[in-house]
């Protein structure tokens, strides 16, 4: 097939052909140009030539993949991403030389600075220490709460009122807990609202991220983005909400507790709840479905509670031995044990994994655990 395109243009409006195609003309100008095209041979050819270019472009060879190729690549991507998630600080191998050179140069620069200007503060070269989680809190005027921080755990005691929290993403060893009158709520880097009334948790709404809500006498819930507790049908008819936030704080403070007490609450309707949380831990006298059981274990794992995660993965393996996720559960048990510092036991589990799944998806990571 051959295509004849006229690049010449004797009409001053020919440039509008491209502009109209790209949507850069106003409606009036586009309509005017359309009327003009009907009477101008040059512009007609210009429009046709652009259309031809686009039409030929649509016939260009397109790379595609078969479903099998796509699945293989997907698996490869997820494996690499998982590795990245587990070892986020490791620099890519191909950049190792450049990174090493940079590190040497930086070290030389620091040394030179130290020689020229001896530091006044003795701890300026101390390694980065993971501290208390950082967060921002806004409260209603009647809010009563206090905070207690210890090592890498932040703990807020909420006694009453309305709270909106935004918690920065937590590192592996960090925990952020809200103690409620009737339970607790654990956070993993998120933005959410909690309301406590009459010594009870009245409402939780998650704007972003995930929280685990553990109320006494009820199965724990995992609430994701957009989820609310209680669900719509069970939500109270009306409750209180602040007119304007009173307290706002970014905390990375000391281990001492603080207390805020404000005078009078102001009434306002509760925003409508939407969605519901999914149960992550069933009562102990029943076997949870495989999906829930695995989700519980993963939830504990991602929350950094490796002891609980290991127990739940073990229970999952026993209750659902034919499930495809048993392989993952075994491997993650080894990781959980390693994170708890018990390398010998972690290696034993890794060996067991390799024995049961010699060609398993986690083989490389399991072998690394044995080194």
């Amino acid at each position, binding site marked *: 097939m051959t295509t004849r*395109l006229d690049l010449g243009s004797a009409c001053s409006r020919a440039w509008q052909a491209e502009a109209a195609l790209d949507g850069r003309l106003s409606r009036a100008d586009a309509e005017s140009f359309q009327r003009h095209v009907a009477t101008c041979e040059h512009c007609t050819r210009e429009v046709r030539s652009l259309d031809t270019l686009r039409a030929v472009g649509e016939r260009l060879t397109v790379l595609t993949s078969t479903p099998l190729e796509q699945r293989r690549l997907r698996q490869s991507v997820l494996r690499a991403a998982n590795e990245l998630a587990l070892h986020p600080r490791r620099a890519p191998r191909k950049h190792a030389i450049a990174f090493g050179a940079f590190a040497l140069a930086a070290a030389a620069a620091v040394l030179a600075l130290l020689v020229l200007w001896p530091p006044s503060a003795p701890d300026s070269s101390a390694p980065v220490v993971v501290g208390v989680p950082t967060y921002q809190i806004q409260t209603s005027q009647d809010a009563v709460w206090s905070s207690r921080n210890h090592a890498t755990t932040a703990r807020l005691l909420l006694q009453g009122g309305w709270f909106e929290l935004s918690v920065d993403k937590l590192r592996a060893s960090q925990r952020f807990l809200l103690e409620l009158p009737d339970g607790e709520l654990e956070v993993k880097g998120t933005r959410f609202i909690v309301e406590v009334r009459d010594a009870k948790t009245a409402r939780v709404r998650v704007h972003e991220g995930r929280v685990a809500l553990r109320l006494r006498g009820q199965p724990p819930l995992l609430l994701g983005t957009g989820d609310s507790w209680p669900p719509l049908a069970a939500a109270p008819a009306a409750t209180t909400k602040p007119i304007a936030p009173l307290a706002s704080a970014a905390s990375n403070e000391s281990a001492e507790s603080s207390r805020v007490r404000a005078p009078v609450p102001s009434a306002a309707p509760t925003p409508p709840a939407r969605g519901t949380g999914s149960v992550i831990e069933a009562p102990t006298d029943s076997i949870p479905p495989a999906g829930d059981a695995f989700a519980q274990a993963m939830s504990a794992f991602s929350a950094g509670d490796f002891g609980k995660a290991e127990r739940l993965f073990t229970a999952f393996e026993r209750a659902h031995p034919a499930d495809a996720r048993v392989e993952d559960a075994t491997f993650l048990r080894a990781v959980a044990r390693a994170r708890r510092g018990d390398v010998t036991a972690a290696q034993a589990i890794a060996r067991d994994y390799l024995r049961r799944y010699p060609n398993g998806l986690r083989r490389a990571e399991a072998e690394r655990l044995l080194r």
Partner: protein
Amino acid sequence: MTALPLVSAQSAPRDGDLVAAVGRDDLEALGKLFERYEPLLRRYFGRLGVAPGDVDDVIQAVFLEVMRAAERYDSQYSVKSWLCGIATIMARRHHRSLARWTARMAAWAGVETKDAIATPYEIVEHDQAARILERALAGLSEKKREVFVLVTLEGLSGEEAARALGVPLKTVWTRLHYARRELRAALEQSS
């Protein structure tokens, strides 16, 4: 392989929600993004001249970069243009890698590569104008080719392309104009 679970009960989460979940190390969300955008990225890389044998590696690099950059994603822009931006950077890196330099040296030395020779089957299957355009597209500068592929072939708006490439909108239109001019000239010349 299982990663952190995607907890939301929504059956078809929006792209932006998936990126936010990836920012929380949710690999299930990353898998969903992969399923949605792998065909687009494969097509895009093919049109940018990445060799078919290298496309898988570059796609993987894109999704690992998505993992790293998800927390910085600005939800006011489309995920498609954001991904195209990352993909463009990856394609540029790929083109500039040592292997590409070796291929160019071979080309300068007069060694014909397989891609330059169309088989009879390809000639029959693929019409002449498209092959001419393909060759002309490969001869465009990187910047012009990126704009042409994104706007004309992938259907991004000028604003989305500007966002993806990190250039002003007027630069997009300028590059697109010159890209079209060169491509139309190539088609005209051959005919």
